């Protein structure tokens, strides 16, 4: 560990927050194959059982049971997405650990850019749900959607303070 690095400092807190950010991606992306094998991912179609039922009508489990094409499409897309989440989580965690922990300004810039760049996507993906009045609360969203977004601002701010 770097001699002047302290976990209780603003930089240390920032490193922890970015590590959690990466770990969320890693854990959820890495756990999906098991969840899929156990059938635990069939309670929802895309976001959550409640929200998906409000948009599509029948329960997600019923839609998937009666619609093999959708089931197949969704499974392959989820597999690709979760693999990419594992890759992104690995990269975020290593930049936080090997770059930001050593006080490298480029690491903070990279982590903030990687998080901020995708924020418009979240607005785009939820627009159809909000347009039809589907209720989306924090409880409806998987943690990988809202936890990194919630951590990004504080992590960036304390990281900036820590690097000054």
């Amino acid at each position, binding site marked *: 560990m770097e001699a002047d690095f302290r976990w209780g400092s603003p930089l240390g807190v920032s490193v922890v927050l970015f590590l959690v950010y990466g770990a969320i*991606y890693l854990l959820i*992306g890495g756990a999906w194959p098991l969840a899929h094998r156990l059938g635990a991912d069939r309670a929802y*179609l*895309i*976001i959550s059982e409640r929200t998906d039922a409000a*948009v*599509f009508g029948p329960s997600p489990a019923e*839609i998937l049971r009666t*619609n093999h*094409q*959708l089931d*197949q*499409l*969704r499974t*392959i*897309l*989820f*597999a*690709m*997405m*979760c*693999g*990419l*989440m*594992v*890759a*992104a989580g*690995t*990269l*975020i965690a*290593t*930049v936080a650990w*090997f*770059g930001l922990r050593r006080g*490298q300004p*480029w*690491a903070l*810039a*990279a*982590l903030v*850019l*990687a*998080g901020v*760049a*995708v924020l418009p*996507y*979240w607005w*785009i*993906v939820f627009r*159809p749900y909000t347009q039809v009045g589907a209720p989306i609360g924090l409880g409806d969203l998987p943690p990988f959607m809202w936890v990194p977004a919630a951590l990004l601002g504080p992590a960036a701010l304390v990281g900036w303070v820590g690097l000054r």
Partner: protein
Amino acid sequence: MDAAFRWLSPLGASVALFLAWGLVWAAGLVGLPLLFARGFPPWLLFSARADAALFGAPPDAIRAAQPAAAEAQWFLSYLIGIGVTSAGVAIVCIAWFGLRRGEVWAFWSLVAAAVPLAALYPYAISRYVRLGVTLGLGDLQPFVTIPALLVPPAIVLAWIGLAGKV
């Protein structure tokens, strides 16, 4: 630039290949919204031809008959775009600030990021192959084919360039 670094060395070529991978993925930030700007692309996953063979109907017909399939394609494509863009930015930074300086952690980080891709692409492709659908390079999306072509030589060149360190 680091004094010992040369582009025309194994490490330099490796950095260039990793940078290309990262830039292609980071370009997804604008590429994906453009792709969906005029409705859906002609495919569901890979290409209209291969998808029609896998799903038993042309992508347009499936989307028309099953709104949930259209929604799943749209929503999950954007979630994939989020992963691709975030990873692309990180890959560029790790290649430039880490690997270019000969940092071993940067090498292992990039290798670790490639591992889940080496598992998931064959998984997705196997769904087609099992049904006897042949997939050519033209059937696959650039965000799949370009890393698949660039990353293996990038890893080998970095290994050579970092000889004695990894």
